């Protein structure tokens, strides 16, 4: 069982991460990945020129590891990967890549889904979008909180 958790200050390549995650794998039938991309248009239709993720060196990595360890404890996965960008990100670039491998596909789907729901609300990042009208801070939306709440009903 391996947890590969990394903070990426430079470009994050989802295909390269998938290649690394699949390398040498013959025991597991199922690998699910999630790739989060920076959008060029905000929810209100405005242009986004860049997204900035501020982080707290040490604490941010720890928040990612905590989430990965919780997923590993909760689901019978073989391996997990969580790679998250920080710093300045332009539209189309990858913000986050998550992968879960398991013998059964349902477990792989659920583990990746859980990782994302927790990362989107609990990972120690501060995000702001910069566009023609200036910069604005982003906080978890109700949709994110509702997604996270789905996992609370069940015992970990």
């Amino acid at each position, binding site marked *: 069982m391996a947890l590969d958790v990394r903070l990426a200050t430079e470009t994050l390549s989802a295909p390269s991460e998938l290649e690394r995650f699949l390398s040498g794998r013959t025991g597991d039938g199922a690998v699910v990945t999630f790739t989060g991309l920076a959008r060029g248009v905000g929810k209100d239709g405005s242009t986004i020129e860049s997204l900035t993720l501020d982080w*707290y060196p040490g604490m941010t990595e*720890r928040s990612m590891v905590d989430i990965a360890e919780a997923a590993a404890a909760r689901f019978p996965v073989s391996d997990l990967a969580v790679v998250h960008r920080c710093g300045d990100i332009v539209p189309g670039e990858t913000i986050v890549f998550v992968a879960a491998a398991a013998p059964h596909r349902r477990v792989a789907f659920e583990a990746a889904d859980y990782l994302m729901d927790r990362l989107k*609300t609990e990972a120690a990042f*501060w995000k702001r979008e910069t566009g023609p009208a200036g910069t604005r*801070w982003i906080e978890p939306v109700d949709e994110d909180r509702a997604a996270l709440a789905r996992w609370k009903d069940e015992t970990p």
Partner: protein
Amino acid sequence: MTRILFFGRVAERLGANCRLDLPAGGATMGEIRNLVAARDEVAAAALLRVDVRGSLDQVVVGEDTLARPDQEIAFFSIFSGG
């Protein structure tokens, strides 16, 4: 002098950090927050908000937690998530 770190909206207003002269026996996180906030109106506006949290040695803690001068103290707006 102990360095107090800031992140998120707090850092936007107050910069990445400030220095504070803490008593040798330490102070609670709430007291430290009030000490920094008392410096000027900008600091007060940035820190005296319900959505500002504090951490001690990189662990989020409550207002009553005692912080010693040799510990890593930070204040920040709530996480945006990833």
